[in-house]
């Protein structure tokens, strides 16, 4: 490696490599890597029995089930409606389109605490939306359904923003070709357009799912935080921290970090797949 760098150095015309890379690594180490390693080091002080007792406790298992379930359905709903929103924004013209496009990013720009109290108030039995659902016996706030609503809100932009650019780049000549070969509109969508959107759709789904798994701020207000019922994993970790049970909190955090890492890997694989797809299309 040293010889490689020395070899490359001859070609380097620009200054500042050591300074900028050194600073990047130092800052990354101090802010991210060293503190993050504390999670694993702290967890390693537990015996396996203690670790498994924490991460496989009934309360933890219920929290995983709720976190994964609510995040999955929230991402699914966003995949369907996000695709419709992206389609409409790219393909059609209507009044206020620019405004709608800008508004898509609101869940990212709006602090999660604000989203949390707003959704909790809206979906409470006496809230603007909750009062319409209450006569049908549908309770949203302080139930699992409320958690799903909050996670849907925060995941909304992901699918739209991953699908939108792919749809914009889509060559309409492919549609013309399919049409000239006798395909109808439905066949063109499902056989020509949809397959090219699949990698982007899955990427957006995975990103929304990953974000929902870790979400705290928007859920804490709309969830009643009852163990086994409405407690997602980040809330459980927070409870352990509040009780100064740091080792238990880090054990649960390790589980979360491993899951996030696997999701990150799958997103990277999807990205690679979609890039390959695009190159094939160009060829």
């Amino acid at each position, binding site marked *: 490696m040293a010889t490689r760098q020395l070899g*490359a150095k001859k070609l380097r*015309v*620009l*200054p*500042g*490599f050591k*300074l*900028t*890379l050194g*600073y990047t690594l130092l*800052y*990354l180490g101090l*802010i*991210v890597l060293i*503190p*993050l390693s*504390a*999670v694993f080091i702290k967890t390693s002080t537990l015996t396996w029995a203690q670790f498994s007792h924490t991460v496989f406790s009934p309360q933890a298992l219920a929290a995983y089930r709720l976190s994964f379930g609510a995040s999955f359905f929230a991402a699914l709903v966003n995949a369907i*409606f996000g695709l*419709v929103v992206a389609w409409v924004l790219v393909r059609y013209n209507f009044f206020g389109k*620019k405004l*709608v496009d*800008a*508004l*898509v*990013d*609101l869940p990212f*720009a*709006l*602090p*999660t*605490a*604000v989203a*949390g*109290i*707003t*959704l909790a*108030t*809206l979906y409470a039995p006496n809230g603007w*939306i909750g009062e319409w659902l209450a006569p049908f016996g549908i309770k949203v706030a302080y139930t699992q359904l409320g958690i799903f609503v909050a996670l*849907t809100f925060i995941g909304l*932009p992901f699918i739209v923003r991953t699908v939108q*650019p792919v749809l914009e780049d889509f060559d309409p000549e492919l549609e013309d070709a399919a049409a000239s070969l006798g395909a109808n509109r439905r066949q063109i969508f499902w056989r020509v357009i949809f397959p090219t959107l699949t990698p982007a759709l899955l990427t*957006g789904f995975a*990103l929304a799912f990953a974000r929902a798994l*870790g979400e*705290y*701020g928007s859920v804490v207000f709309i969830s009643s935080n009852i163990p086994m019922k409405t407690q997602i994993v*980040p809330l459980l*970790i*927070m409870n352990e921290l509040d009780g100064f049970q*740091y080792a238990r909190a*880090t054990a649960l*955090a390790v589980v*979360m970090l491993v899951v*996030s890492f696997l999701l*990150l890997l799958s*997103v*990277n694989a999807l990205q690679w797949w979609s*890039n390959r797809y695009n190159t094939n299309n160009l060829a």
Partner: protein
Amino acid sequence: MTAAETINAPHRMSEPPFMRWLLIGIALAFMALFLVVPLVSVFAGALKQGFGFYFQTLRDPMTLSAIKLTLIAAGISVPLNCIFGVAAAWAIAKFDFRGKNVLLTLIDLPFSISPVISGMIYVLVFGAQGWFGSWFSDHNIKIIFAVPGIVLATIFVTFPFVARELIPLMQAQGRTEEEAARVLGASGWQIFWRVTIPNIKWGLIYGVILCNARAMGEFGAVSVVSGHIQGLTNTIPLHVQILYESNNIAGAFAVASLLTFLALVTLVLKTWVEYKNTALRGTAFTPVPFGKKSN
């Protein structure tokens, strides 16, 4: 070929008008239900007890100290992450070295970590039972449940924002302009200020806008390291929580309306920068991994 195109163009298939309006209707209804109604309800909730109460809440010393702390946290974390973003982008875009992809993944890491865990890691390092906890308490320096912890947690959650805007931008621009300046005798800093900065100006502004929005709005990570001491370790989002949980709903929404206003300003500025520089479009907050080129 061009003749054929012009002939074909009007025949290009689209959905029948009924289908088109149905899809537009579904999209707008979904957006209205999930985005517009919550947005309107924030301001309605804030003004529920009248303008007098609204301004009284905003002028409250506890609110003012929360605003001050949020400005401090953002004022420190945004410039630091800016410097980091420029340095990382310079190293990654202007030079070739091994392990670049690993570095890119590591820079993105804070995005894929739950805010609760982001705050927790600093408790593990600096907390009373943490690695350096006893050293800091011996020297009477308080980090956790104090302002430095809040600043650190804010730096962590906003860590990738500027870097991930600048890296793809500078990679796309290449290094020929800087190399030309070098050959003409410019020094490193001259190249940086006169060639690179004008080229990356919009990307940098874009990154700062997004970074600032997250820095001022962060709740989960800051919540872990703050002691929730009113007037001392309360940021605006934490103050919203305290007011809400003490059943001062109108007060909570009054303070929340400040953050909502900030979010709307962020969206306007973001749209304006995208209009100025179309290359930045779509990269906003969505953490699509590096390496994605929309050709």
